[in-house]
């Protein structure tokens, strides 16, 4: 079940911006703490399969997750832990999927970032990049058929994923159907090891928007304030009937592609540039500077995040692992049509 971790109100949009900002920071912090934890478990050999972090993209992701509300749809991608939490994913869904717990949402059948709860609005990504865009479109088409108004569907992509045919077909479909799709493209300068000049030739990915006939927005992904405003604004425009919105956020991936990768190829110049700023630190300083939180509060939030994560890890560790003998090994829902049953 999707839920809200402790410390959050039921409504995400607070009356004043400082409160929104504080909440956003807490999700970002929780995501960072959770991902740091899974990383160390991975390094300690406690996690099989890949580990992929959203480090440096928490501001973009949280702004997406927070702009959504009940009845909206979110199809997060690999660097969306902050947005997942903000949208309502529990920390145990995160830990249980990485660990592969039988009682987790993916029951050990799928792992790490490939999780979701489709019935609760969070679509489980498949690996094939770009493939979720049209699936979100379909949910939004269903809402239209069902007369469910004012819902929004958001999904994320990287710079690399804009080279896929699926991205293109999906965004064009949304444009033709005038769907309330918000596509948040994060240009984090690399697709795995591939720099952007081997990926696209336009000056800025936001220039793609006009060719689809959709609104385009640019945002500095290291700055939480801008992310909340621009992505939040895009979601509102989609909700208000202005059709698909494409947001291009810029940032730098502050981790390897996955934790098996040291990212040695990331150019030092980029790390030293404004793109290389850590959005979590930037927002941390901003909170202090604006007086929206004092150091003590920030420390307590951190402790709180750590204890939530530790608890969720402990919980996942106690959960049973999948048991092949108890698996039904049946891929289909219509059991009477399973081979052997006919």
């Amino acid at each position, binding site marked *: 079940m999707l839920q809200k971790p402790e410390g959050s109100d039921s409504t995400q949009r607070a009356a004043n911006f400082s409160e929104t900002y504080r909440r956003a920071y807490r999700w970002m912090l929780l995501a960072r703490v959770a991902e740091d934890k899974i990383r160390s478990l991975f390094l300690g050999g406690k996690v099989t399969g890949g580990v992929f972090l959203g480090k440096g993209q928490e501001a973009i992701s949280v702004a997406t997750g927070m702009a959504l509300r009940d009845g909206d749809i979110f199809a997060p991608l690999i660097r969306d832990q902050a947005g997942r939490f903000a949208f309502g994913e529990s920390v145990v869904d995160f830990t249980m999927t990485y660990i592969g717990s039988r009682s987790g949402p993916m029951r050990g059948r799928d792992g790490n970032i490939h999780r979701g709860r489709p019935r609760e609005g969070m679509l489980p990504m498949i690996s094939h990049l770009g493939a979720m865009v*049209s*699936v979100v*479109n*379909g949910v939004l088409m269903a809402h239209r058929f069902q007369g469910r108004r004012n819902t929004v569907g958001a999904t994320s992509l990287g710079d690399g994923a804009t080279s896929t045919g*699926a991205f293109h*077909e999906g965004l064009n479909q949304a444009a033709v159907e005038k769907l309330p799709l918000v596509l948040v493209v994060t240009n984090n300068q690399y697709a795995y090891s591939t720099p952007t000049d081997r990926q696209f030739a336009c000056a800025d990915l936001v220039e793609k928007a006009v060719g689809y006939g959709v609104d385009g927005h640019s945002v500095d992904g290291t700055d939480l304030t801008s992310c909340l405003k621009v992505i939040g604004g895009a979601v509102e425009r989609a909700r208000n009937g202005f059709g698909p919105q494409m947001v291009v956020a810029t940032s730098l991936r502050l981790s390897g592609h996955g934790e098996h990768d040291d990212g040695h190829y990331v150019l030092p110049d980029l790390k030293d540039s404004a793109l290389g700023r850590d959005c979590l630190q930037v927002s941390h300083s901003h909170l202090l500077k604006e007086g929206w939180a004092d150091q003590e509060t920030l420390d307590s939030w951190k402790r709180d995040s750590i204890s939530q994560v530790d608890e969720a890890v402990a919980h996942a560790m106690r959960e049973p692992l999948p048991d092949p003998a108890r698996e039904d090994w*049946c891929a289909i829902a219509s059991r*009477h049509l399973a081979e052997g049953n006919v």
Partner: protein
Amino acid sequence: MITYLEAIREAQAHALAADPRVYLYGQDIATFGGAFKATKNLAQAYPGRVLDSPISEDAIVGSAIGAAIEGMRPIVEMQFADFSTVAFNQIVNQAATLHWRTGVPCPIIVRLPSGGTPGSGPFHSQSLEAIYAHYPGLIIVTPATVEDAYSMLLESITIEDPVIFCEHKYLYYHLKAESLPSEALPIGKARVARQGRDATVVTYSAMLHECLAAAEELAAEGWELEVVDLRSIKPIDTDTVLASVARTGRVLAVGEAWPWGGVTAEILARVASEGFNLLDAPPMRLNSKDTPVPFHPNLWGTHRPTAQTIAAAARTLLNK
């Protein structure tokens, strides 16, 4: 008289009328009624529920999956089965895995106008049922009769899994029935289309009619072929096949698709492993040749099995 194509149209009309969750999506299917007219007049009769799509097979299927998650029952049309290769990833990796991964079913129907017709060439003639059957998570139906085209499409809408509906273009206009059925065998059950004692011919889709013609030919020679119409190729009703082989002791599997790993390979593997002791002679199979489907009718007529080549294979089988 109602044609195979009209039966498909009627099933969709019925589904639209009976079930508000059903909608149709595909290229040129709305006002135009589809390249083959399988949705003729449906956009007019059900406004807003029959939608023209862009030329984006990947997105067509992707969106159907999303809609299915949210409670709809989309029926999507590929203009030709051959173009489903562009939607391949969404079908085999997104639709086929969703229920197994999440427990949430993915009830979509992908209609594939399949199979060869003279002059259609390599890209408008393919029979891709084996490709989809290899992946776990899909139901593959292959109606050979007007009645099955109708009833199996209606039943497909009730199935919680993605259904690949392989309808045969060669049957669209030529195959006719008196009326639509009110009762039907369920999907998953094969049908003995002709009874016989001497050998079992296992087939499906348009090849059923070639096999029945071959059986007529052999009847004139005193041989009685039993012809089994699989109706769905995933699942395969192995029991009905084996029961027939138990009676006849001989089996010939016939398919229009390519040989390597096709339905006929799967049938032979099942009969040989599960029904070895029923066999009085080596099992045989007959498929199209292992080349793309040729354009010119001279070549096309030789590329696929026909009543003549099936009869010849059956004679060989009977004399073993």
